[in-house]
């Protein structure tokens, strides 16, 4: 008598639908952010090497390959941010005056902060010093 | 399988009453060996489907006296008044106990338990956990029972028969679903908590598991089934599925209207309607907050007058809660909205809910006293499968959940006492019974046979004849035809054929055994209804439209025989509330 069928374990779980794929991409986004930090550290290290080396490095970054790398990293960063925002209301409950703040309000607040911060950074670039 | 399964107390059924009995026995007698058999995991039990609430006097404006009176008059004076007094007095303590065990009761702003109005009650006294009261009570009880790790649970073991030897109940025979093995579980005392048998009818709020197992097992062991003719139709079920729309929908202010837009209950001696925007609406013990039997009967009369809607799944009227507004609906009756959306395809915030009367509860059951004792020594019963009786001819909404607690506990304690006083079991005789049951199951259901009828055919015919002869309104020729039909079906059932002759998790086998139980329950209902030639509460005879206290202020007792059951009568205990006319309305 064979008995109950043992529980099946499949390594293909990540391909069972978009939620699982997005989960995997979300986890991978940490790698993308790590790569960006390496790139940033390289840039900073070139500053120490002097203006010439720094300019050479900037020229290197003009290469389409780096554009693509940066675009991919930006995409991952966006994904990382939005999934993070979605996670926050699940991880913490905020009460105001005895009433729980609805998740949508928390997420909206974070997006608002994000957009605000981005505008400040953008303004810093656009304004002539 | 001959093995050594033996306990001091065995509880059959893992719903509210069974779990309360387990906890009571385990707390009071930690040295006793307690076990529970349940054909489903306990948290699947039908207590889970109860919605509206559980009644107990707790607020200052309420009184024990009022609750007793509401219950007795609701029962059309067929309740035993000593039992009702005891029940109402013990109810608040039991409910507080359940609160202490974590049941998430809805609350007032000051943190005290909130109560809502319910049908037939003169004062609001129904505790509720939104509209999933039964669900929360069951899970709180089940989870609390897990504290008692010494309690042995036989989950998904299907009890088929009582072990009776030397004039005493000494356990049950049960099929272990996983293996299909037939075991004897011996016990010094047994408590039946298997619920009602609403599935004997075609259109019911009851879950699939409610097949009257415990009633039938006790009946077969010679114990009387009491007041079986009293079957409660809940006035508001969804057409087609029979899914319950809780009385709380009306308790919160929902109204019933017919095709003419009229709140038709005002035509049936249930008082004057107060407009829905009047702060006095809804009025207690009036109109939509009348008792269930009268509301269901009013529907049938509206149907006769042609003032009901007609749809693919029969006739219906409208339960309108729109005026409550989305916020209140979501706070108080969110499950009603979920169910109506899923199973009727309408959103009660914007549309009225189609509803019709639906078989909901059996007032009758295994004849017990207030300690849950039956006439068979060692056998106890509590919950819907038992009949104490506090419900008489019509149960008031929200008394049954409380009943599970009060009488579950009492049965647990008295079964424990019995187990202490009666230690010896006749193990040889019990093993012989087990072997006999195993052989009979094998011969009937594990051997392929040709030409047998399908289970579903017999079940459908049983359902149909029960509704025809023993529905909301009954009369002699109809009931007689039903009794004859049930007799015929019992014979045909002997030759039923099933597809599945294997052992592991054979649900067709258990369905077949359940159908056998249903046939016995149906027989007791029909014959008890035939003999009661009066109208009282939920038992309405068109040929005997009046209540007849001279002849029938009595409980019926149905005893199984080889032919038609023998119906006897027992006196109703009257203490301080002499029978009077039942009146409702403002």
């Amino acid at each position: 008598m064979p008995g109950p069928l043992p529980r099946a374990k499949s390594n293909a779980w990540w391909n069972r639908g978009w939620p699982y794929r997005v989960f995997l991409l979300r986890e991978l986004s940490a790698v993308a952010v790590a790569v960006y930090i390496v790139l940033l550290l390289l840039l900073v290290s070139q500053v120490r090497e002097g203006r010439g080396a720094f300019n050479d490095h900037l020229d290197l970054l003009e290469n389409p390959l780096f554009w693509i790398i940066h675009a991919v990293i930006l995409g991952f960063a966006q994904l990382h941010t939005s999934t993070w925002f979605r996670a926050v209301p699940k991880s913490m409950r905020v009460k105001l005056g005895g009433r729980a703040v609805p998740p949508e309000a928390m997420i909206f607040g974070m997006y608002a902060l994000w957009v605000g911060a981005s505008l400040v950074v953008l303004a810093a670039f656009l304004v002539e010093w | 399988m001959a093995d050594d399964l033996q306990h001091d107390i065995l509880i059959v059924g893992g719903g509210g009453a069974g779990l309360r009995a387990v906890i009571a026995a385990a707390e009071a007698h930690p040295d006793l060996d307690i076990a529970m058999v349940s054909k489903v995991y306990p948290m699947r039990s039908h207590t889970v489907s109860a919605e509206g609430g559980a009644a107990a006097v707790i607020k200052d404006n309420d009184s024990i006296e009022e609750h007793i009176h509401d219950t007795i008059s609701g029962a059309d004076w067929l309740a035993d008044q000593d039992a009702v007094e005891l029940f109402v007095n013990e109810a608040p303590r039991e409910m507080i106990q359940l609160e202490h065990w974590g049941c998430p009761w809805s609350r007032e702003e000051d943190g005290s338990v909130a109560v809502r109005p319910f049908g037939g009650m003169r004062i609001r006294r129904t505790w509720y956990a939104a509209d999933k009261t039964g669900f929360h009570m069951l899970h709180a009880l089940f989870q609390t029972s897990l504290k008692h790790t010494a309690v042995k649970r036989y989950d998904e073991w299907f009890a088929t028969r009582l072990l009776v030897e030397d004039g005493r109940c000494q356990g049950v025979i049960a099929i272990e679903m996983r293996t299909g093995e037939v075991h004897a579980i011996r016990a010094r005392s047994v408590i039946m908590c298997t619920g009602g048998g609403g599935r004997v009818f075609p259109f019911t709020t009851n879950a699939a598991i409610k097949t009257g197992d415990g009633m039938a097992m006790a009946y077969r062991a010679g114990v009387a089934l009491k007041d079986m003719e009293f079957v409660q139709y809940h006035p508001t079920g969804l057409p087609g599925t029979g899914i319950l729309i809780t009385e709380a929908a009306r308790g919160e202010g929902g109204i019933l209207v017919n095709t003419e837009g009229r709140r038709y209950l005002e035509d049936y001696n249930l008082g004057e309607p107060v407009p829905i925007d009047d702060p006095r609406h809804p009025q207690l013990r009036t109109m939509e907050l009348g008792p269930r039997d009268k509301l269901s009967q009013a529907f049938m009369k509206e149907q006769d007058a042609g003032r009901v809607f007609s749809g693919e799944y029969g006739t219906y009227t409208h339960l309108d809660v729109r005026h409550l507004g989305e916020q209140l609906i979501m706070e108080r009756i969110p499950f009603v909205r979920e169910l109506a959306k899923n199973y009727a395809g309408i959103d009660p915030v914007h549309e009225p809910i189609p509803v019709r009367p639906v078989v909901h509860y059996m007032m009758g059951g295994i004849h017990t006293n207030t300690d849950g004792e039956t006439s068979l020594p060692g056998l106890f019963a509590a919950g819907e499968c038992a009949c104490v009786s506090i419900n008489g001819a019509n149960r008031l909404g929200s008394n049954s959940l409380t009943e599970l607690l009060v009488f579950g506990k009492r049965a647990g304690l008295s079964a424990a006492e019995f187990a202490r006083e009666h230690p010896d079991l006749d193990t040889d005789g019990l093993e012989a019974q087990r072997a006999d049951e195993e052989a009979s199951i094998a011969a009937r259901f594990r051997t392929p046979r040709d030409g047998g009828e399908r289970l579903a055919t017999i079940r459908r015919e049983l359902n149909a004849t029960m509704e025809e002869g023993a529905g909301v309104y009954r009369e002699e020729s109809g009931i007689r035809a039903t009794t004859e039909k049930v007799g015929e079906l019992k014979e045909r059932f002997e030759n039923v054929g099933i597809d599945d002759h294997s052992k592991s998790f054979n649900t067709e086998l258990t369905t077949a055994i359940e159908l056998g139980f249903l046939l016995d329950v149906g027989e007791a209902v029909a014959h008890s209804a035939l003999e009661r030639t009066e109208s009282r509460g939920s038992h309405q005879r068109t040929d005997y439209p009046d209540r007849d206290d001279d002849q029938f202020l009595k409980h019926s007792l149905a005893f199984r025989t080889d032919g038609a059951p023998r119906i006897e009568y027992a006196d109703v205990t009257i203490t301080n509330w002499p029978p009077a006319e039942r009146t409702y309305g403002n």
Partner: protein
Amino acid sequence: MTTETMTVTLEVFRYHPDTDSEPSYQSYEVPYREEWVVLDALNWLKDEVDGTLSYRWSCRMGVCGSCGMMVNGYPRLTCNAFLREFMPGPIRVEPLRGFPVERDMVTVLDDFMEKLTDVKPYIIREEEQSLDDGEYLQSPSQLADFKQFSMCINCTLCYAACPVYEHEDEFLGPAVLALAQRYNLDSRDQGNEQRQQLIWADEGIWDCTFVGECSAVCPKDVDPAAAIQQAKVEATNNFFISLLPFTPPGMGR
């Protein structure tokens, strides 16, 4: 074609522990009806065509938690999965993923039931108040703190959605952790510390990688993922507080 004569194909997972060495699929034609759920189709099959089909069901109104199955690869309560959602079919019906299979769509729940018991899902107090003193007071706001996590019907759909449970035998899983959190958040309970050892262990909250599908498939909006993340935050706070040489006011447990 009229509704009367329309049919739909059900591809049903079959496995019998007495005879089969591996599972197979069997196709059945069932009548299509607008208001039928997958469970209705299975019941029709069992009644009329094949009595050997095995599955659990009871309340048919989404509250007993018995009838969870994979419907076209997604965990669903079959009493609440309408045929019309899957037309024109075929509709594949399988047992919930992640569990051993007893027979056909009947899963083995031993592991779930054991873990449920392990987290002590009941009120724990140093001393129970006397019943004579009435109920424990609990404001609606305190009730709201745990109410959502008390709505779990133990249907185990969340386990079927959880890749961690699929791969980690010891993981307590979404519903059980949510239930533990339900009691930890209940103002009447004092059992937090007793539950911590198990909940804060690796096989408790820290095995969870926050895929979040448990909450997506939950038919009762319990949001077990949220319960677990909240417990993680609490455990983390507790760790840092324990590093301090003093207990900040209001932080002591």
